[in-house]
């Protein structure tokens, strides 16, 4: 059947094969429809059982208004909100900016740059847990290696990093940047490499150099990718549990907790799972628009590619 359609298509120019294809697949008949359904079932089951059900269950757990008054009365919650804003805002933007700059650096065609890239990937290839444990120990005020190095090089006694709120938060952000910088650098590097060289050559012929090449070629072509990366990483950073939990441990005195860790802390240390769920729910007004924009962006890009 599709054979005859193909034959007709050849006679009728370019638009036909496409509609022929749609005829064949779009109107799935009998047995094919059953097959298609059977192939879709495993994911549908996973999605209903482990995404939709937990979400609904979570909404039900956090539906008591009493929880929110309890939550807003807790000063630790507000500290966590502020910390999350700083963590996400600084962590994501700093990292993306560095990744963008570094992706330019790694465009250099030198053997040592290629070798450096292999080393530079290490933080990302290492699992988060051991890496963050090591950073926690590295920053130890008394026995940490960082302070030993400072002492050897400059003869100064470094501070006890994780005993202060600000330095603890900075350490968490630093660890998060350290871990994820290679990943985003590679994504942006791939984006840069996909810019056709001819565009730069054309710009050079027109007399553009350095900054103007960047402003008129690199920037317009990279802006969308950069924006998608920022959004995606905002979501990842918002849900990042490991860096805060293992580097500062939320301390000193729970002053560096972020929303992702405080929720777990409520649920398992204080045994108030409902409060934990309510705490996560307060992130929804930010999360939902983000997810919505991201879904649109990613879907559009899927259509284009």
């Amino acid at each position, binding site marked *: 059947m599709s054979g005859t359609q193909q034959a007709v298509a050849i006679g009728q120019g370019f638009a036909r094969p496409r509609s022929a294809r749609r005829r064949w697949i779009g109107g799935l008949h009998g047995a094919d429809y059953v097959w298609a359904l059977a192939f879709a079932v495993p994911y549908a089951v*996973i999605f209903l059982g482990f995404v939709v059900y937990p979400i609904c269950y979570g909404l039900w757990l956090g539906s008591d208004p009493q929880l929110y008054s309890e939550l807003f009365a807790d000063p630790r919650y507000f500290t966590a909100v502020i910390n999350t804003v700083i963590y996400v805002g600084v962590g994501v933007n700093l990292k993306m900016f560095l990744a963008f700059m570094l992706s330019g650096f790694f465009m250099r065609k030198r053997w040592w740059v290629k070798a450096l890239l292999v080393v530079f990937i290490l933080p990302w290839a290492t699992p988060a847990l051991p*890496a963050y444990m090591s950073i926690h120990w590295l920053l130890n005020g*008394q026995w940490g290696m960082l302070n030993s190095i400072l002492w050897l090089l400059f003869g100064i006694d470094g501070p006890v990093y994780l005993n202060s709120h600000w330095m603890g938060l900075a350490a968490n952000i630093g660890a998060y940047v*350290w871990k994820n910088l290679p990943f985003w650098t590679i994504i942006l590097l791939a984006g840069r490499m996909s810019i056709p060289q001819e565009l730069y050559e054309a710009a050079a012929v027109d007399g553009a150099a350095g900054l103007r090449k960047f402003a008129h070629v690199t920037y317009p072509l990279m802006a969308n*990718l950069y*924006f998608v990366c920022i959004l995606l990483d905002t*979501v990842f950073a918002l849900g990042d549990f490991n860096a805060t939990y293992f580097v500062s441990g939320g301390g000193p005195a729970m002053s560096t907790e972020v929303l992702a860790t405080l929720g777990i802390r409520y649920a398992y240390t204080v045994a108030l799972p409902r409060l934990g769920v309510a705490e996560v729910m307060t992130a929804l007004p930010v999360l939902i628009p983000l997810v919505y924009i991201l879904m649109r962006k990613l879907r559009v890009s899927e259509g284009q590619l």
Partner: protein
Amino acid sequence: MSAAYGRTVTTDTGFAAGTVAGTTQPVRRRTSRPHYRLRRYAMEALAMAFGLVLAVWSVLPLYNMWMIALDSHNDVFSGAIWPENPTLESFRVVVTQDFWYLARFWHQFGNSFYVGLSVMFLTLAIGSLASFTVGRMRMRHGWMLSNAALMTYVIPASFLAIPMYRIMQIYGLTNNLSSVILALTTFATPYAIFIFSQYGKSIPMELDESARIDGANPLQIYLRIYLPLMAPALVAVGTYALLLAWNEYLYNFLLLSTPESMTVAVALAQFLNSDESPWNFMMATAIIYAMPPIILYYGFRRYMAAGLTMGGVKG
């Protein structure tokens, strides 16, 4: 146009100020060559210095891990940059399970592998089947499936942790490795569907159609045409899923609490429970735990990079 361009180049050579880039270029280069070369060397040196800083930044925490692991038990608190008496004692302790936190280390290592491989297999199977229906068979409401996947991809897993824990209790799966396998498959599959649908577009539809004419049913097309041609994407996503499962901590920690069911990640974090933990043992465990993903990553780097650029977040 190009002919005119060629003529200006040849006739303009006598003019001091050429309008075409091609004519001004050699003049400028000739006058400033020594400076230019000097500046290039300076730039290269600067770049190398920067590269060195970058290398130190990347490696320092890992170097720290090794140094503590090589410390003997009494030297851990010295903070030395190079251990006074480097010893492999702590690795021996881990490998021979000679410490009570590590009593079931190899069993837990096996658990981690079991979870990783199961998640990988399930993710590949479920993801490729779903992408086949949506991308190849074009099921009527297939877009709902890909939207569901996309939504799961952008919801932070840690925000679902508490309800997920309760759900697993309802399903009766706590302290059972399948709970972690199912949860992590849920979070790995969306990426798989995303990448597979991207990659699938590069496989010509005509192949499916000609197989149809030869009388193949969708299952045969899936097995004999779709899967073999998707091999690079399967490798990339398989590696991704395996690494995701191996590196995960939060869900392992919440869902597995008995020494029998624990994975290495949970066993490793147990060291943090007490203040007098032997840090060198902990770091030795951490290094052994970090080895498989690092080896896997560098082994499949080519495919991973391909997988990422294939679609990951391409805008």
